[in-house]
C-alpha cells in the first residue's frame, strides 16, 4: 500500500506537486493519469525516496521508503528515464542491483527470462531499443519480488506485443494481491489496464475513484439514433436540456433523453428508427473534461475534444450546431 498525505514538491518558483493526498490499495491496478508535467514522475520519485518532499509525507507499506530494511523487497520501480549505465550488460546491471540485497543470481536469471531479455542479457544496454530498455527496467523492478510495484510510463516505446505483455503482467501482479501503481498519459492504455484511477493535473488530484466512476461522473450518457428522417426526428426530440448532434448522415446522437423516451417519440410520430444504442462516454472524454483547465503545456489547437454542452451556444436551444445541421441535410 502507498499512502501520500499532503505531499508537495516545490522547485524554486514552480510547484510540481501541490499537496496531494491519496492511497494506492493492494490487489488492484491503480492508474496514475495526467498530462505531461502534471507531477506524476515527481510523485513517483518521492515515493521511492529519491526526491525529498517539500511538505507532507509518503509511506510504502506503512513506513517511509528510507526506513525499510530491504527496500527492493518492499517496492520495485521503473522510473521514467532509463536508470541504467549503457556500458553495462543487462545481466551485470541486474546483478549489481541484486547484490545490494543479497538476491541470488538465480533470481536475476528468473527476471531476465520473465521479461523476455534472455537473448540480449549479455549484451550492452547501449544497443537496446526503447522497448528492451523498458523490459530491463521492469526486470529491475521485479528483482526483489516486491509487494508494491511502481511503473512510470511502462508501455512507452513498447511494441504491441510488449504492450499486451505489460498489461497482462500488471493485472497478474495485482491478482496476486500486490499493490500496482502505474502512470501513463495514454488514456486508452489506462482504460484497458487500470481498475482504479488517480487523475492528476498541475500537481493536484482531480479524481480518485474506480475507473467506471470516473467515466460516468464526467462523460454524459448519450444515445445513438439511426433513422431515415434525422431532421424531422431531431425537431420532434428538441426541447430544453436535450442536445442533438448529427455526426453523420442518418445518425443522431441524443443527450439528455433516455432510449425509452426516444423510442416512444418515434412510435408516436410513426418514424422508423433502426438503431438505438446507448453510448458510454469514453475515458478520453472524461479525462479531457477533468484536465482541461489543468494542462500545463496546452497545444494551441484544443478543438479535438468536445466543448461541454452548457457552454456551446446551440446547447441552450437544444438543437444542432449550424455545421452539424448542414452536414445532416446534405
Amino acid at each position, binding site marked *: 500500500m502507498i499512502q501520500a498525505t499532503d505531499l508537495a514538491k516545490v522547485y524554486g518558483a514552480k510547484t510540481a506537486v501541490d499537496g496531494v493526498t491519496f492511497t494506492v490499495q493492494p490487489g488492484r491496478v491503480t492508474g496514475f493519469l495526467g498530462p505531461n508535467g502534471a507531477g506524476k514522475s515527481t510523485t513517483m520519485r518521492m515515493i*521511492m525516496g*529519491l526526491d525529498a518532499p517539500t511538505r507532507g509525507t509518503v509511506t510504502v507499506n506503512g513506513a517511509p521508503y528510507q526506513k525499510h530494511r*530491504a527496500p527492493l523487497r518492499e517496492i520495485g520501480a521503473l522510473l521514467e528515464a532509463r*536508470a541504467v549505465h549503457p556500458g553495462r550488460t543487462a545481466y551485470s546491471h541486474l546483478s*549489481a*542491483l541484486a547484490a*545490494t540485497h*543479497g538476491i541470488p543470481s538465480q533470481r536475476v536469471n528468473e527476471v531476465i527470462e520473465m521479461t523476455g531479455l534472455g537473448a540480449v542479457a549479455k549484451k550492452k544496454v547501449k544497443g537496446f531499443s526503447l522497448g528492451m530498455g523498458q523490459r530491463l527496467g521492469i526486470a529491475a523492478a521485479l528483482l526483489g519480488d516486491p*509487494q508494491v510495484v511502481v511503473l512510470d510510463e511502462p508501455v512507452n516505446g513498447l511494441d504491441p506485443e510488449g504492450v499486451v505483455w505489460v498489461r497482462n503482467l500488471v493485472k497478474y501482479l495485482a491478482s496476486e494481491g500486490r499493490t500496482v501503481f502505474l502512470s501513463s498519459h495514454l488514456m486508452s492504455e489506462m482504460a484497458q489496464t487500470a481498475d482504479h484511477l488517480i487523475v492528476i493535473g498541475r500537481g493536484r488530484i482531480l479524481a480518485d475513484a474506480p475507473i467506471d466512476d470516473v467515466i460516468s461522473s464526467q462523460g454524459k450518457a448519450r444515445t445513438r439514433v439511426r433513422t431515415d428522417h434525422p431532421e424531422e426526428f431531431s425537431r420532434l426530440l428538441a426541447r430544453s436540456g436535450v442536445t442533438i448532434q448529427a455526426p453523420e448522415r442518418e445518425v443522431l446522437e441524443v443527450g439528455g433523453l433516455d432510449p425509452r423516451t426516444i423510442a416512444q417519440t418515434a412510435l408516436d410520430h410513426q418514424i422508423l428508427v433502426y438503431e438505438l444504442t446507448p453510448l458510454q462516454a469514453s475515458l478520453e472524454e472524461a479525462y479531457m473534461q477533468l484536465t482541461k483547465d489543468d494542462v500545463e503545456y496546452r497545444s494551441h489547437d484544443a478543438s479535438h475534444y468536445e466543448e461541454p454542452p452548457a457552454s456551446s451556444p446551440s446547447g441552450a436551444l437544444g438543437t444542432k450546431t449550424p455545421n452539424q445541421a448542414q452536414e445532416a441535410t446534405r
Partner: protein
Amino acid sequence: MSTAVQTNRRSAVPQERLAGPNFLRVLNSERIKLLSLLSTRILLLCGVVLLVGFAALQAWGIGQVTTNVQNGGATGPRAEALDTTSAVLHLPAGGVSFAQLIVGALAVLMISSEFTTGMSRATFAAVPTRWPVLAAKGVYAAVVGFVLTYVGAYIGGLVAQPILANYNLHLDMASGEVQRFMLLNAAYVAAVALMGLALGALLRNSAGAIVTLVALLFVLPIIFQLIPGDFFTEARKYLPTNAADAMFEAGSSSALNTAYLEPWQGTLVLVAYVVALLGAGFVTLRQRDV
C-alpha cells in the same frame, strides 16, 4: 486480506531472502559495477602502460646523461645537477604525475556516471541511506589508486633494470628507498582518487569534476608560482601536489627541501583535502535529490 497473502508468501521463504543492504553487500555491488565497465579496464591499462613507459624512458634518459658525463662530453649545468643515484631510485614512480590523472578520472567517473546515465536512480532506490554507496566507491577508488600505482611502478622498475644495466647503473627494487618512494606515491594516488570521487559526488558532472581535479593538481600550482609575493610562495606549500612533495620526503635520508612543508605537515594537509572534499560529498549526496 492481502496482508495475509503477503505474510503467507513471506513466511514460506527462508529469512535470508528478506536481507537488505549492508556495507558488505554494497561493496559487492560496487565491485560488480566497477568491473563490468570496459572504461574501467581501459583506464587501468592506460595507467599501468604510462607508469611502465615513463620508467623505461627515464632509465634511458638517465643512462644517456651518465654516459655523456663519463665521456666528458656534457659538462653543462644539467649534467652537474643530476643526482644519478636519487634519480635511479625514484625512477619507478616517475610517471605518477600523469598516472594520477588517469586514476583521478576513473574515480570521478565511478560516481558521476551514475548521475549522467540515470543509474543513480536505481542505485539509490536500492540503497536509500546512500552513504554506503559512496563509501564503497571510496574503498575501491583508494585501493585501485594504490595498487595500480604500486604495481605499475614495480613493473616499470623491472623494465628499467635491463636498460640501466646497459649504462652500468643498478636499480634494486627491494631497497628501502625504492620501496619507500613507491609506497608514498601509491598512497598519494589513492588520495587523488578519493578527491576525484568526492568532486564527482559534489558536481555530478564528469567533465566538470575532471577539469576541477586537473585545476587543483596542475593549474593552481603554476598560477601560484607565477604570481609574485610572499603570500603565494607560502600558500603554494598547501596545494595538494606540493603537500604531497613534502610527504614524499617522509623517512628520506637526504636533507629536507626547505621549499616544502615538513613531511608530517604535508601528509596532514593532503589528508585534510581528502576529508574535507569527501565530507562535502557525503553531505551533498544525503541532502540533494537524486
